[in-house]
């Protein structure tokens, strides 16, 4: 039974990928761009959820890793003179290292304290980027990052984003289903007990934070590919809040929840803002409705709904 279930799940994944691959053939450039943004934002939110939803760590300043990944990539391309492809590795790696460092400092703290200390540290990083004009371009950011030819066209950027995102999503998924992932979820639910069964809670969480930082960085690097620019707002705390909201809105206990949340937010922003400047108001109201009626997020609701149906059958 599990076999057929798994098969159907991979079947769905493959079908989804095919649709996404064919997307540029049928749709206008703008929609391709929008999809790329959703994918990379969703990847960023998923990497956050790796520690937030599955690790129970209040990672409140995930945008730092997104931003650092982007800056790392952009600066590497602009300043090093080495192959731009190297930038796509350096950015995420720098983000991962930063994730480890910030993690080391914060890890002793619990919940809200963790989150707030992380916001402080993240804000320090942000302040440095914001103020270090000569290197980072200050609050104006860096614009017009040159890219290798094959990914500089809109479609090239889209396919690159699609491939990297799906690969990352797959890797993250495998990690969650691995013993490491089980231990991580155990820690989320009951850290004391986890320690009592021989899990080195801190170390386990640190690794998770590093991984999350890495994939946050990957998303940042993809942003450089899609939008060719970086700016300090990418690591401002408001964006981090938005990422948390994507996780919660989509469903932070389901794997694709954050991706769905990202899609919801990006689409709302795009379409509602075309109708009214009061789109924050609309977004706020929609969020409240979700909280009231879908307490487990959009996907959490669907999950439950489907399960209930399956049971009824």
């Amino acid at each position, binding site marked *: 039974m599990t076999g057929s279930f798994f098969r159907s799940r991979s079947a769905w994944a493959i079908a989804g990928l095919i649709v996404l691959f064919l997307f540029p053939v049928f749709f206008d450039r703008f929609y391709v761009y929008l999809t790329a943004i959703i994918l990379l934002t969703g990847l960023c939110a998923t990497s956050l959820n790796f520690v937030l939803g599955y690790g129970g760590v209040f990672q409140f300043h995930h945008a730092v890793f997104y931003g650092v990944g982007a800056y790392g990539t952009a600066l590497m391309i602009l300043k090093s003179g080495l192959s731009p492809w190297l930038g796509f590795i350096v950015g995420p790696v720098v983000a991962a290292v930063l994730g480890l460092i910030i993690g080391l400092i914060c890890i002793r*703290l619990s919940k809200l*304290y963790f989150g707030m200390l992380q916001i402080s*540290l993240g*804000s320090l990083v942000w302040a440095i980027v914001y103020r270090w004009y000569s290197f980072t371009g200050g609050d104006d950011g860096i614009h017009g990052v040159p890219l290798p030819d094959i990914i500089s066209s809109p479609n090239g950027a889209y396919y690159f984003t699609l491939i990297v995102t799906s690969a990352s999503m797959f890797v993250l998924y495998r990690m969650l289903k691995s013993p490491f992932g089980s231990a991580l979820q155990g820690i989320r639910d009951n850290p004391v007990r986890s320690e009592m069964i021989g899990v080195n809670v801190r170390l386990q969480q640190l690794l998770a934070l590093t991984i999350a930082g890495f994939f946050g960085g990957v998303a940042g690097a993809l942003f450089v590919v899609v939008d060719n620019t970086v700016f300090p707002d990418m690591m401002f705390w408001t964006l981090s809040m938005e990422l948390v909201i994507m996780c919660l809105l989509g469903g932070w206990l389901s794997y694709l929840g954050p991706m769905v949340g990202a899609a919801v937010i990006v689409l709302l922003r795009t379409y509602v803002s075309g109708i009214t400047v009061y789109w924050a108001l609309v977004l706020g109201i929609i969020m*409240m409705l979700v909280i009231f009626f879908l307490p487990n997020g959009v996907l959490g609701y669907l999950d439950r709904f489907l399960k209930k149906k399956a049971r009824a059958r």
Partner: protein
Amino acid sequence: MENLFGFISPGILSQILVGLSRTVILFIVSSGLSLILGVLRIPNVAHGSLYMIGAFMAYSVSHLFGGGTAGFWIALILAPLGVAALSFLAERSLFQFLYEREHLMLLLLTFALSLVFGDLVKLVWGAEYRSVPVPFIFQGYINLFGGLPFPIYSFFLLIMGPVIAILLWLLTNKTKIGKISRAAAVDREMVGAVGINVSWVFGIVFIIGCSLAGLGGVLVAPTVSVTLGMDHTLIMEAFLIVIMGGLGNVWGALLGALIFGLTQSLGILIWPQFGIVFPYLAVVVVLIFRPTGILRSTW
């Protein structure tokens, strides 16, 4: 180096005094946040919006009463009441049903609320900057150490801070409602089962906390321009202050505000280039040495 001596000599004392008066508003707002966080466990992001609304209400009220001194005093009473009414509405229609939810969900809800409030303020008051004049008796300044000016209004603030701190401490530690709310923070259902109408207790605490945000807004109004977005910077600072001091601890909020305010003003004097990082550094240092804040938290 030159800079360093430059600021020590002509009255660092007055500098500190000024620094203190500015922490008062931070304190008042964060103490409300701390109360709500400590008792109701709601990380209330909309707290900043209520502060902004308090300031706008202060503008409207003082304007309505001729913009003079009388207007300010009436605003000092009416605006926090207005904010209280608004929070009462929010509590009864929203929060009331959600206390049992995950903290993160409440964070999401309050964030949504702050978005709504932000746009509502724009709808009601428009985009113009607003200004509330300093009440007449507090206008002007006196000369302190070495002829440096100190606004009289700041004296007023300096007195308000401790008064509010003591009142709040009495409320949480000495009154029954304070004790009930501390108990309810941990086990709401059981508090109900010993004959207490928890729903109202929570409502009252929420309203008190929120009106403190409103009060902060009124008090700040005469010193700044009342604008959209003034909630934004404040809320993050308030959260950091609360965390630094220890969640739910009134004195912690006071201490946190002091540290935050002083590192902010002194930090910029020491290293102008990266002045903005000092308060954050203070938070980092504090939390590294005291992972649950300086004073005991109720969490």
